[in-house]
């Protein structure tokens, strides 16, 4: 009996993988199609590097949005706030002659404070997230125009610009990837063995090492490709680091558990002694801090803060999460899937722009592919769940 059940559990897990693979499959199809129609430019090493750099800002917002969405909320203000904080960072360097570190810190700290503001209205004052964050979006749009005075704030600090424009030295890239993999395998082995201790069954070594091999392959391919261009872009590295950290927070911490509970059934969470308001507040603070980071990356990438920076990016962030299967109803979702979602969005934009078609046609094709890709994903999942 026991063994049958654990076997099933294995199968269920497998299905979960297939679920995230569905969108990866869709992504792969998109890539292959673009590769064909761009006659090889799309998957050129250089363009892959571009692609990842291009997705990094939205990616950082998307992983923050994932946390908000899992807790059953969302944040419409991140576009404005990212623009605002990017401008704040630029202004603290160019206007206040602060050090780049101080600028980054300032953006992130103010971001957290803005998160507090949003969280306060939503969690404690009971204003619907839609209105609270729409209001904030207006407020910080105004703030952005005030900080920039309607013009661009250029940033020349080379160290600051490194964040958006430079690459990790190849050797460091290999080192980091190797280190991450080893750490991961170490913890996974420990985790699995404690699992089998409880469930009284050995998890198949074959399957497990297959999985490790898979990760190794993807990781190695990524680093090799990046390194054969110029190295892992620092912005991409930041995104991956933050994604890793958030994945850990959501999966392995007490707070993470609470986020899923609050989003899944707020009443049940409250009745289990969870402080829903505090959890909700914290998710917005995380989102705010990440918006600060995104603003910094955006400013560093463009070497300037502009009055229109990051406008409308909140929709891209939510879209990335939803493409990655995060439910708007709360309670479910994974950071890594949102990153994949952001990659899908970036691929569409990048691929369409490589193609020499009218921008109106581009909009139409992009809209269609978006719908079809998600539909494919949904269908796969349904077929899996019978």
């Amino acid at each position, binding site marked *: 009996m026991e063994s049958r059940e654990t076997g099933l559990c294995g199968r269920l*897990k497998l299905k979960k993988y297939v679920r995230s693979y569905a969108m990866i499959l869709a992504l792969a199809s998109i890539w292959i199609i673009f590769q064909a129609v761009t006659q090889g430019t799309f998957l050129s090493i250089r363009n892959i590097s571009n692609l990842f750099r291009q997705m990094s800002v939205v990616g950082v917002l998307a992983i923050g949005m994932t946390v908000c969405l899992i807790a059953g909320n969302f944040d419409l203000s991140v576009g404005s706030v990212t623009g605002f904080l990017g401008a704040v960072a630029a202004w603290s360097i160019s206007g206040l002659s602060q050090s780049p570190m101080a600028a980054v810190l300032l953006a992130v700290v103010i971001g957290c404070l803005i998160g507090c503001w949003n969280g306060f209205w939503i969690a404690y004052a009971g204003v619907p997230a839609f209105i609270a964050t729409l209001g904030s979006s207006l407020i910080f749009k105004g703030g952005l125009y005030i900080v920039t005075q309607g013009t661009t704030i250029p940033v020349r600090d080379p160290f600051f610009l490194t964040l958006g424009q430079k690459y990790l030295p190849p050797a460091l890239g290999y080192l980091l990837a190797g280190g991450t993999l080893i750490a991961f395998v170490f913890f996974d082995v420990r985790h699995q063995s404690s*699992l089998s201790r409880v469930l009284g069954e050995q998890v198949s070594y074959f399957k497990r090492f297959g999985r490790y091999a898979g990760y190794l392959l993807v990781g190695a391919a990524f680093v090799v490709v990046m390194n054969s261009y110029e190295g892992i872009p620092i912005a991409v590295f930041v995104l991956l680091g933050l994604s890793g950290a958030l994945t850990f927070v959501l999966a392995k911490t007490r707070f993470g558990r609470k986020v899923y509970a609050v989003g899944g059934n707020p009443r049940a969470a409250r009745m289990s002694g969870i402080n829903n308001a505090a959890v909700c507040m914290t998710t917005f603070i995380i989102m705010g801090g990440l918006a600060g980071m995104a603003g910094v990356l955006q400013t560093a990438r463009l070497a300037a803060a502009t009055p229109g920076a990051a406008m409308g990016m909140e929709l891209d962030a939510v879209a990335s999460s939803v493409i990655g299967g995060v439910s708007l109803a709360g309670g479910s979702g994974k950071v890594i899937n949102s990153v994949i979602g952001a990659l899908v969005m970036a691929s569409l934009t990048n691929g369409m722009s490589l193609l020499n078609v009218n921008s109106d046609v581009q909009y139409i094709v992009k809209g269609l592919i978006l719908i079809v890709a998600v539909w494919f994903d949904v269908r796969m999942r349904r077929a899996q769940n019978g």
Partner: protein
Amino acid sequence: MSAEVILKLCGIKKEFSGVRVLHGIDLAVRSGEIHALVGENGAGKSTLMKILSGVYPAGEYGGEFFLKGAKARFHGIKAAQRAGIEIIAQELELVLQMRVYENVFLGSGQKLPESEMIDRTMKVFRRLGIPLDPLAPVGGLGVGQRQMVAIAKALVKEADVLIFDEPTAALSEAESQKLFFILRELREKGITILYISHRLGEVLALSDTITVLRDGRLVETRLADRFDEGGLIACMIGRELCGRFPPALCEPGEEVLSVRGMSAQDSAGRRLVDGVSLSVRAGEIVGIAGLMGAGRTELVRCIFGAQPGRISGEIMLCGRPAAVSSPREAIRSGIGLVSEDRKLEGLVGMLDVMQNITMAGLGPLSLHGVMLDGEARRQAGYYVEKLGIRCTGLYQRVEGLSGGNQQKVCIAKFLLPKPRVLILDEPTRGVDVGAKYEIYELLRRLALEGVAVLIVSSDLPEVLGLSDRILVMKDGRITGELSRQEATQERVMYYATMEGN
């Protein structure tokens, strides 16, 4: 009793993600009978009924069934309804934002003016003998009242076959009796009734035929008078059950919980709880009995800090005053409440068994905020085993559990933080006899370990059998207190229906 067969099931099979839960059920239901279905939690009763009523459409199950001789292939609930099969599901599906009468006539396919719908709703409730305002929003009703709405919903439709999946789990004796009266009336009219319940007494009294399911297989179909309760239990769980309630052994210890002058008002200023005082001692199990709407649920929610509105009164824990203004504080000071509504307030359906069980005790299961996964799994596994929660593993979503097993998960959730006071509102709602006994035993053992246990239950035999002391409520007040020795059904009912003060 040799009426024609209205429903004939041939080799019905069903699996969920590769796990077979029905292994080929053959069954014949005769027209105009009350046919009961019993079996342990997770035996497959609800699943079978969902197949008959089109919830699982044709193609999602194996085997076939015939309605009035014709092969039935429903592609949805609507199709089943058209064919004359109506189900009142175990997990109540009502639209909380809508009013009672709107729910009653939802999807009825009848084009009626509003006043007519209200009128008919009132008539149904009059028949059921409960005063329920047809215009009240369903969200404000207790579980028992919601159950009545669901029943009314089925009654206003003209069905040939009515399926009731544990309709009385949240009803007290008096309300159940009214329902039985109506069911018998329907039987007279030639309507066939399929009836699922874990209250074996009422099954034996009500039904014509009883079918027993075990582990997705049909073990017995017999006329009801060929069964007695012991035999039925043996047939269900495959062994005899010695004694339905564990004996009370202990001498109560110190007073653990003491409530003074607890009152609660709703937004309209109505007193739901009216100056209640009570105390529970370590090692004691105190039961609260009463009819539907007596305010029992509100009382325990007050103690747990979960009742909205104006609350007054004081709570003492182990002789010290405790400020309990939220469930969080309650849990911190050692109070646990297993809510009567597991779906709304108990479970996070999309999370797995482990996450649900550990939800109220995350603190001790983590170090510097990081979850101690091994420990969490160990503890959750312990309770899964101890309560006999039937699941495919700790990582199964609780949505996929049978009703009774979901209830056990809710109980496990509040056992894990090791409370000093454990309150259970309808603790065995939907739990099978075998498991009920295990829960009773568990509660008794907890009491022995010094926990103060307070239970609210509409199942009178349960209150009588389990409690060391019984409080009876009516209109928000405690109208009587009975010791284990004095308590009888009649006395409890006397206090529960007592007029005035």
